[in-house]
């Protein structure tokens, strides 16, 4: 083999390598665009449980600025901690729910959900009277409600005491707080969706795109762990409106219910309405056999 053959080959290889590298850079340029929008603060941000109060304050300001920049809305994001001696419980009266979906709509508005997909944490199933077999349920009805011979079962995160979603998360981005609410750190989640596979109640939602909300429709009263505008590629779920309930207010879905089918309160307070319901109504939970121990109870009046 001659010297010139070798050097020609080397030149060709070098040209090929350069071309390949250029093609590769061009091919992955969208990732560079994506990465360039991530600030160093966001990239290196620690897990929620590791942030000191000062660090959290910095994070909250940064998130408020980002929301202002991306959505054009002035918002306040707070870190609201659980109260002592509080364990939340939620009950739903299947005898008087009429399936109007105002709860789902209120959730959509309160929690700054994506408008295009009309996202909500609540899904209302129309079921035939006589059976709670969800196999014959329908969540997409559009006729006037309540329909004769049917009843309605809204389903949202059950805030389980034995939550499969928490067990499976590889990075501990989701956990159960001291007052019973299962939360997600949207800035820690890597978007593997294992929790969505594990949840037996279809309670988890994923941000398949960055949410789109007009600035004037954004609810500016936000919390870090609940209704702040979530980024693309992360999981989210119902948080029992912790930005409201931890301050003593009712969740948005409950306030929107015209019939009063929803009952919410502190399970540790013996005089609470939720305790009365649990003691005096025929209460059941969904998929009890799975051992998830939900905090969301269903009951009938008769």
């Amino acid at each position, binding site marked *: *083999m001659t010297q010139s053959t070798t050097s020609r080959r080397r030149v060709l290889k070098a040209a090929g390598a350069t071309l*390949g590298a250029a*093609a*590769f850079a*061009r*091919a*992955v340029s*969208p*990732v*560079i665009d*994506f*990465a360039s929008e*991530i600030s160093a603060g966001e990239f290196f941000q620690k*897990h929620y449980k590791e942030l000191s109060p000062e660090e959290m304050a910095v994070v909250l300001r940064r998130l408020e600025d980002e929301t202002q920049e991306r959505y054009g809305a002035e918002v306040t994001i707070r870190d609201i901690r659980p109260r002592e001696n509080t364990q939340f419980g939620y009950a739903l009266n299947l005898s008087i729910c009429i399936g109007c979906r105002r709860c789902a709509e209120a959730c959509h508005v309160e929690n700054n959900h994506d408008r295009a997909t009309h996202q909500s944490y609540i*899904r209302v*199933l129309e079921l035939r009277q006589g059976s709670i*077999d*969800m*196999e*014959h*349920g329908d*969540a997409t009805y559009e006729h006037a409600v309540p329909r004769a011979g049917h009843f309605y079962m809204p*389903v949202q995160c059950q805030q389980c005491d034995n939550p*499969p979603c928490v*067990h*499976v*998360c*590889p*990075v*501990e*981005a989701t956990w159960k707080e001291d007052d019973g609410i299962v939360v997600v750190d949207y800035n*820690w*989640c*890597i*978007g*593997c*969706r*294992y929790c*969505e*596979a*594990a*949840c*037996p*109640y*279809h309670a*988890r*939602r*994923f*941000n*398949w*795109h*960055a949410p789109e909300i007009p600035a004037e429709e954004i609810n500016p009263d936000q919390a870090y762990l609940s209704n702040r505008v979530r980024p*693309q*590629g*992360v*999981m989210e779920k119902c948080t029992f409106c912790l930005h409201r309930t931890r301050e003593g207010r009712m969740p948005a879905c409950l306030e929107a219910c015209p019939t009063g089918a929803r009952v919410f309160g502190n399970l540790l307070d013996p005089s609470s309405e939720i305790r009365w319901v649990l003691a005096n109504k025929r209460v059941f939970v969904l*998929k009890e056999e*799975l*051992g*998830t121990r939900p905090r969301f109870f269903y009951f009938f009046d008769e």
Partner: protein
Amino acid sequence: MESEEGSALGASMPPASGGHEVTYPRFLWRILSRATDGPPLFYAWMTALTAVALVGAHAWATQTNEGLGLTGMGDHVSWGLYIANFTFAVGLAAGGVMMVVPAYLYHDEEMHDVVIIGELLAVAALVMALAFVVVDLGRPDRFWHLMPLIGRFNWPISMLTWDVLVLNGYLVLNLHICGYLLYMRYLRRKPNPRWYVPFVLVSIVWAVSVHTVTAFLYSGLGGRPFWNSALLAPRFLVSAFVTGPAFIILTLRVLRQATGLALPGGPVRTLVNVMRITVLVNLFMVLSEVFTEFYTGGSHVAAARYLYFGVDGHAALVPWIWTAIALNVGGAIILLTPALSKRPHVLEAAMVMVFVGVWIEKGMGLIIPGFVPSTLHELVEYIPTRTEWMVTAGVWALGLLVFTVALKAAAPILRDAARAAQIRREHEES
């Protein structure tokens, strides 16, 4: 002394005396540069793979930037083509162990000469598996959150953390074994058994754990009755022991065609014998699952009914699963009929048949029905989008690139194997 051109495997080798001067990093660089040498067909192969990999890389980059909404997944079917291929690729990696066991535990000499192919397949398949996980992540930029000690690692509760450990561990194990053997061969030194045999024995157990852990990802979820079966891990292992040997047999055939090397025929016969059992056991396990589902009935069977027969007009997966069954059964028949399996081209066809059959049944035929119907019993179908196909093709191209480069690096060892086979043949004739 081989010339650079002509032999697909060849590049010049260092003189025996100067070998010990080449450090390990330098050796790795030599392998990579060796991978850019070959006949025109080799260049065509590598260029085609690179092109597909680039298309996949671009599709993935766009998906990362614009969101996983570019895929066909949704909140009902939240895992799809990527995780299906991930599951399959892990199986392929575990299947390499089917060469290791005869080579090291049963002292099959001919197998021992070519066992490195199985170990290199494990490396390439693991690269693919890890790539499939990465392309499925919503936030790959947050990858560091998954690292033990640096991020937050939910071990031992989350099965995904076990998977991270065993997959990376298996990769490191095989990289060490192959790297050490190839390095020693490059330096023309006899490898010291102490530096690889214990690792090889560990890799046998580790291969089983790799696929068991991956199966446990799915089988531990009470909310997904289609997966929540004790048989899932054994099924995974058995089907891995179908696809691994099938791919290796095809590789040996391709190597023989492409390089003209007369590799020993024993390994193929051994692997065919292994497959005769595993392909039957695989079919039996499918039968066992199907019986349990359909005989029991009730809502537990909903996913299986959707998969095999469709429900309420939703039948997207039905042609897939029946094709898979036909392929697996056809491949089994060929394997079990000596008159057929003796013929090389028929055997190769059988290998392709079972490979594709298991890919369908274990990939799309396992992951998707786990989500249909949903946990609220809603029927939402899943059809992969162009983005998903491009990314998937790109990852497969990446895997094949890695495998090709690795085989190129293993060229000296394979040439030794061919020579040893020739000597054995001459011995028998004399």
